[in-house]
């Protein structure tokens, strides 16, 4: 069965929605009855104080966690839980809060790894690297080179990622996610630990990805300035509960959000 293509969904309609999702680890309720949707073509931010359940939410979306309750509708198909391979094949790519690259491989090879799902020829063919396998590799390499060009990381193409500074590793990771040509890109704190200049660069790349490839993006971020500038809509979680959902301006003036961030006398 073919996963419905993203093009079947009009821009502005929900590409993914979660409905009444609850996730508990033993007695700890990480997510409690949360519903929201992500519309095609938008940049959607998920914010909240530490331990609000943001990363858990992303893990639910890409099938790493299976919620006890609720439904996830992705491209018109409703499931109780996603499976990671379904998510990947369906066009969900992600980056991680702590960079999760293949440290010993070059930046190029890491991004190339993002093409794995798109490769049609088998392992043996690829080892032989002749005929159709070669043609295929060239086509994939072209896509990867376009991404390298897009992210302006030509200078580090052949450098082992372990030797790269953190900001560049994050960029390589974004490149690998982009190599999947995702319909939905999940970014878990893409700007954590970066200096101002790196943050600005990263913001620009996120906007460019959204603009250039039309990729729908859901991101978790702590830097409020960045979130408010980048995103079209923001959902706010606190202690696993959704406390606000709307445009950056609406969210900014929401009393519950202010209380959650600044604390309130109980």
């Amino acid at each position: 069965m073919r996963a419905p293509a993203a093009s079947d969904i009009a821009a502005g309609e929900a590409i993914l929605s979660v409905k009444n999702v609850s996730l508990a680890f033993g007695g700890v309720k990480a997510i409690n009855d949360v519903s929201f949707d992500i519309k095609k073509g938008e940049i959607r931010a998920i914010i909240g104080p530490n331990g609000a359940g943001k990363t858990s939410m992303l893990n639910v979306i890409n099938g790493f966690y299976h919620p006890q309750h609720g439904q996830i509708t992705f491209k018109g198909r409703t499931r109780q839980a996603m499976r990671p391979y379904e998510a990947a094949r369906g066009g969900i790519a992600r980056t991680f809060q702590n960079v999760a690259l293949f440290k010993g491989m070059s930046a190029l090879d890491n991004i190339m790894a993002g093409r794995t799902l798109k490769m049609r020829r088998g392992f043996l063919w690829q080892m032989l690297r002749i005929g159709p396998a070669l043609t295929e590799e060239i086509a994939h390499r072209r896509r990867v080179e376009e991404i390298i060009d897009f992210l302006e990381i030509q200078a580090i193409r052949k450098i082992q990622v372990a030797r790269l500074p953190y900001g560049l590793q994050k960029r390589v990771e974004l490149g690998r996610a982009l190599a999947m040509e995702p319909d939905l890109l999940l970014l878990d704190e893409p700007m954590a630990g970066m200096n101002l200049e790196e943050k600005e660069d990263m913001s620009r790349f996120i906007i460019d990805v959204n603009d250039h490839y039309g990729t729908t993006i859901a991101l978790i971020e702590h830097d409020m300035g960045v979130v408010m500038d980048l995103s079209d809509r923001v959902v706010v979680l606190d202690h696993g509960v959704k406390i606000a959902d709307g445009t950056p301006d609406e969210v900014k003036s929401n009393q519950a959000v202010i209380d959650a961030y600044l604390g309130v006398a109980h």
Partner: protein
Amino acid sequence: MPRGIVGAAQREDAVAIDATAAADTFPKLLVHNARVRADRPALRHKDLGIWQTWTWADLLDEVRAYAVGLHRLGLKRGDTIAIVGANRPRIYGSVMAAQMLGAVPVPVYADAVADELAYVLAHAEVRFAAVEDQEQVDKIVSVAERLPKLETMVYDELKGLRDYDHAKLRAIDDVIADGRTALANDPKVAEWLDNEIAAGKGSDISIILYTSGTTGQSKGVVLSAKGCIDAARDTVAFDKLTDQDEALAYLPIAWVGDHYLNYAQQLVAGFCTACPEHGETAMQDLREIGPTFYFAPPRTFETMLTRVMIRMEDASFIKRKLFHYFIGVARRYGEAILNGQPVPVQGRLLYRLGQFLVYAPLKNVLGLSRVRVAYTAGEAIGPDLFSFYRSLGMNLKQLYGQTEAFLYVTCQPDGQIYSDTVGPAAPNVDIRIADSGEVLFKSPGMFVGYFKDDAKTKEAMTSDGYVKTGDAGFFDQKTGHLKIIDRAKDVGKLNDGTLFPPKYIENKLKFFPNIREAVAYGDKRDFVAVMLNIDLTAVGSWAERNNVVYGSYQELAGHPLVYDMVARHVEETNRALAADKMTAGAQIRRFLILHKELDADDGELTRTQKVRRGFIAERYDPLIKALYDGSAEADISTEVTFEDGRKGNLSARVKIRDVTTVPTLEKAA
């Protein structure tokens, strides 16, 4: 090969040379190159990881279409067009296409801030701008209200520009496609374009290059087509550049050096200019392209050497030993071999072995294997650094020039290379030294004037048509080469009337690895005295080897053994100064080593690490007084700013040393 064909080829060559001589504008040279070396590479650019090549025929074809496209947007003869971007084929193509229409390109530094950009674009009254990407478009848009004359921008890179208002914005690709369609649809267009090319004259303005403006507002240096081409012809012949050569264009396009080395010389000699993939990949691209003609400022050579040295420290024992042994061999014989001087057979053999084991692989790693001619300029280069590259067999030379001369004023001929001169006058350049010591020149490439600024033009010229460089210099008696000592306005005089060139003295001192900074005083004083900073890394490692114990910079700087060592350096500097009549009187009599490192945070250095002599003199006034009143030590207390922004007080007792000077011939006589 049948004899007749060889003869024909030779005849064609002769015709080709005649035709080059006839071409007096760059578009004519482009047409010429596309005819005589249609299939030779003209431009390269690495795109998506693969080097793409344009032959001269391809390039002409594309530039013609581009020119027609620009004309259809409204660009016409006499208009100015700003060119803002990195070294990319489309950016160079924009310069060529504009010149083909008789329009005047005005390249601007890609890293200029919006304000500088606005000044240049407004002053040059540009109607068009050819820019690289969103960054440049944004900058220009942000100052749009200051540029009422600007009508259209064309850009190379679409990324991020999709949602912009395209009323005044066009992709260069679309402009070229549009021009191509027009050329294909109507044969008259091609004819019209041929006429436009033919209508260009040598006396036309070819380009306006704005000076970087380190001294006040930047000025637009107007250069004529004939001037540019004549100057480039002279140096192409001087360095025997041919269409077999190759250069890597990585210098800013708005700088005269890039327009000269990678554009004017390229079109005259017909060689290939390669554009790096990206600003940061230049070093890798250098290795992949292996240029035969290379220019880099001394700092680049220094960075390269440092990188090699650091990596050698991490190499295995055998490799490290081998490296240091053969670098030693190169130091002993390399330069002599390069200069064609007699060298013992044993030295030659060792050098040959070193070539095989060390020099060739090293040059390969650096991307310098194929370099036939390399130049450095811009600032003084350390003798050790200079001879390191030369000893590896690289023909590194120095030149001296400026925008107003269309680069070359002097350059060193093969075989006459000295680290402390910039060479004799370049071909067809006439140099004169003014009474004030300022270097004046007249050259084929010299500028027509400053754009819209006759007063400044007049100021920059002598009444008999020489251009004032603003630099002080003199001709070395031994070699006949020019030596540049300092900016003319910085050169002072001692009380007895002797010339005092502070930077010249400071540079000589700084070439010693142990000396990090030097500040020389002497203007309107009786003698020259200097304040020094030691290099903590170099002197620190010396201290370790010699069991000198120290706890801080201050303690090390005040150590008597360090003073002894530095005194030897100063005496050596005096010997070097004494060797020249012009500088012999400016020998250093007294020096001190400062108790703290000069720092930009304290305002003692500029952000580009240049010493602020005046400010330092005020700040360390007690020390200056002590230098000149003969005391052996002085107390000083200064406010310092720590890295975290806190301020504190640092006081010290600084010792002052006298140094012996070398008697000069005249004074001895």
